């Protein structure tokens, strides 16, 4: 039947799309909130780890012919390792340096990684095959692909797992303690260097996971990380630095703004939504929507 589909259905489809998109945005956001929010490293290379995860997925599935479900954890693991290596090589010797210095180094890392990716894989977009059925899941008048549903479920699971690690485990407590007061945490016997590496690796792993999940949904290109980085910053600032629930909610808010903005305002400005949001939020409430109050002085 082809005729007028009522506008309610369009809205429902937009909402469904935003929910699915929000899950991966949240994943990107909590990865960055660990690094930017807790470590106070403005990690411009975050998006490169996202791209790295996607390329590793491509490598395993399309080049080496590995099983899709096996390739996913492998890609994430490699992301964790790359993150750990970056922390060890680039950031360890800058411990205690000011935020501008680490930022410049991370910009250097970003440019280098992206262009190494470009040299390795060329600029041609790659797509990754999935084991999911190609016909979508239809729910009444709206529909979504099985692949996206899978991404959404895995993203939520990862967010939950991260939340548990940070709040329930000894490692998570040590992380929080370290970034609240590094010297005192050291006095408690926490190995500060290990915590820095672990935190950066965990954040990187989450970015790689987002890339590995979204790579098969979209296409894989070397520049895919740029927008991902900037959106992750928007999400983290939206949610308040270092707040995992904030980053999760921030991810969904950004997804809804983009989806509804593109659907009802102008699709050309879709990617501007995040930036406008950052500017407005920082001007109105500079600490983000969900930041904790701290005593100054």
């Amino acid at each position, binding site marked *: 039947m082809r005729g007028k589909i009522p506008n309610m259905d369009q809205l429902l489809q937009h909402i469904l799309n935003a929910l699915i998109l929000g899950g991966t945005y949240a994943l990107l956001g909590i990865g960055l909130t660990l690094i930017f929010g807790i470590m*106070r490293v403005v990690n411009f290379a975050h998006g490169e780890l996202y791209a790295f995860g996607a390329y590793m997925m491509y490598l395993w599935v399309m080049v080496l012919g590995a099983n899709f479900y096996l390739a996913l954890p492998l890609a994430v693991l490699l992301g964790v390792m790359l993150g750990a290596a970056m922390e060890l090589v680039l950031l360890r010797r*800058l411990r205690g340096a000011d935020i501008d210095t680490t930022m410049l180094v991370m910009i*250097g890392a970003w*440019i280098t990684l992206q262009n190494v990716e470009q040299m390795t894989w060329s600029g041609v977009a790659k797509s990754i095959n999935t084991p999911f059925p190609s016909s979508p899941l239809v729910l009444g008048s709206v529909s979504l692909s099985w692949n996206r549903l899978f991404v959404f479920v895995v993203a939520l699971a990862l967010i939950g797992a991260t939340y548990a690690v940070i709040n329930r485990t000894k490692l998570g407590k040590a992380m929080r303690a370290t970034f609240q007061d590094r010297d005192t945490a050291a006095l408690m016997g926490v190995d500060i260097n290990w915590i820095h590496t672990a935190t950066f690796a965990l954040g990187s792993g989450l970015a790689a996971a987002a890339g590995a999940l979204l790579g098969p949904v979209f296409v894989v290109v070397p520049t895919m990380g740029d927008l991902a980085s900037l959106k992750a910053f928007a999400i983290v*600032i939206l949610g308040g630095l270092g707040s995992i629930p904030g980053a999760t909610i921030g991810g969904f808010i950004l997804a809804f703004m983009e989806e509804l903005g593109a659907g009802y305002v102008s699709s050309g400005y879709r990617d501007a939504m995040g930036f406008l949001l950052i*500017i407005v939020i920082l001007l109105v409430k*500079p600490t983000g929507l969900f930041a904790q109050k701290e005593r100054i002085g």
Partner: protein
Amino acid sequence: MKQGLTIAWLLFLASVPLWLNNLYVLHVLIMAGIFIIAAMSLNLLLGYTGQLSLGHVAFFGIGAYASSLASLGFAVHLLPDWQVSVDPKPVWFSMLCGTLIAGLCGWAIGRLSFKVRGAYFVIVTVSFAEVIRLVALNWVELTQGPMALNNIPYLRLGIPGLFELSFLRKPANYYLVLAVGVICYVVIRRLVHSRAGRAMIALRENEPLAASVGVDVTRYLVLATIVSAGMAGAAGALYAHYVRIVDPDVFLFIYTVTMVIMVVTGGKGTLAGPIVGGAIFGLLPETLRALEAPPEVQWVTYGVLMVLVVYFLPDGIVPALRNWWHGRSAVAAAPAPEQASTEAAR
């Protein structure tokens, strides 16, 4: 002595088109010069007030677009039935407009974004540049969007009927860039050696202390942003009328990064730093091109150099050279205290 050296340098730079008959190299020098002006302007913010603005390319782009649009003329509908149209203006006037509009944007952005500092300030400036890029991309009626503004007229100066200087050829453009560069250099130099520059340095070194001796923080940050944005806008205008095409890609983040690398490598907070850094990174792409290196290699070189500079030359090339030189001359004769003090202020 010092002045003599400056004049010798100037004479040398002015003589370049006379003996250099390779127009391509001259083209490279002009492009490098435009970027050096932009880097000098960024240095005022980054080096003297200590604010890491990563949206600087926005002012460059705004200058380029404003100048191009003024010289080409345009008509836009601000409301469905309210059209604003501007007739083409002379290029010299357009370039002035570009500079002023960029400065005006600097004022507005400065007022807004200096409410936040540190990482937040960086993200706000990045977002600002990105929003401007998206506006340039999507406001097709004004900017032609990705179709770019083409056939931008080149600069002509003169009195009608008497004589006319046309800036179509390269040597003329070279002198134009050189002249603007020298003006910007002189303005920055005077500024940083004055009350205003000292206020900026005070803010960079210790903001609460600066405020306690009466430095109006916002006022001087905004002043620095206006001057810096205006100069970046002038560089953008030069670019627009030399390359004669402006597209939304002039707002790409990578250009800001290039300017930051130039300033940091050369030495932020020094007058010569951005010139040295700008010369190195302005000529590097062409050197790599001559070596037939793929462009990725150029960017990887940028990235690796950036990391290495932060590690090994955290203050940049110019301060490192100066320290080395002082170390040498200190062996020969201890410097007069007065001289040392003015050196450090630079």
